[in-house]
């Protein structure tokens, strides 16, 4: 089993840790670094609960080896400061809340990449984030509202 020293930034702060090769980014975040805002859902990259941003791109942390973020900038829900957080409240963009951090991380990545995203693009990007309460209309409204300036 190889051990790897990895250095990256997490929400702007430097992280320098040594991990075994098989350590997943999700477990590194939740268990080692105690950032539990990122949730563990299906564990096979389908549900989107564990979505984090790696160099701005939304990725499922359950499928990323910790070694793969060496040198990268990682953002989690703990580092998010976006109008989306208000618009999700305004529009009822969540029910039970289990998918919320993942929804927000994807939506934030979208609005950074495409500030003028169309409604269709919003739906496309959020397709990888399942809401088991089926609260999709509220989520889509919340993202559109943030796009339109809150």
């Amino acid at each position: 089993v190889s051990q790897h020293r990895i250095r990256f930034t997490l929400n702007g702060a430097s992280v320098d840790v040594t991990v075994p090769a098989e350590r997943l980014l999700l477990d590194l975040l939740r268990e080692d670094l105690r950032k539990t805002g990122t949730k563990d859902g299906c564990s096979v990259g389908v549900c989107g609960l564990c979505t984090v941003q790696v160099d701005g791109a939304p990725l499922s942390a359950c499928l990323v080896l910790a070694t793969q973020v060496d040198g990268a900038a990682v953002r989690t829900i703990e580092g998010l400061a976006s109008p989306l957080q208000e618009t999700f409240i305004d529009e009822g963009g969540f029910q039970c809340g289990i998918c919320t951090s993942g929804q927000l991380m994807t939506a934030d990545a979208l609005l950074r990449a495409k500030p003028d995203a169309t409604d269709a693009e919003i739906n496309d990007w959020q397709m990888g984030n399942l809401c088991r309460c089926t609260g999709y209309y509220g989520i889509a409204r919340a993202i559109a509202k943030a796009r339109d300036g809150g």
Partner: protein
Amino acid sequence: MRPFDYVEPETLDEALETLAADPDDTVVMAGGTSLVILMKQDLVRPARVLGLRRIEALRAVDERRDVLALFLL
């Protein structure tokens, strides 16, 4: 997931050498979205995972041949 060794060669030659040295127990990983699932489910049990992310030659769009080759690392 079972433990394994992880190697990240910086050149294609180095990667091919590593692969040739132990082809049966080495798997090549690009993004990992398929491989990591298979390893989690214990369907693939490599002794060694060879990561391609540091190989500059594989960060390219190659249009020189009949086919368009996309290396998205």
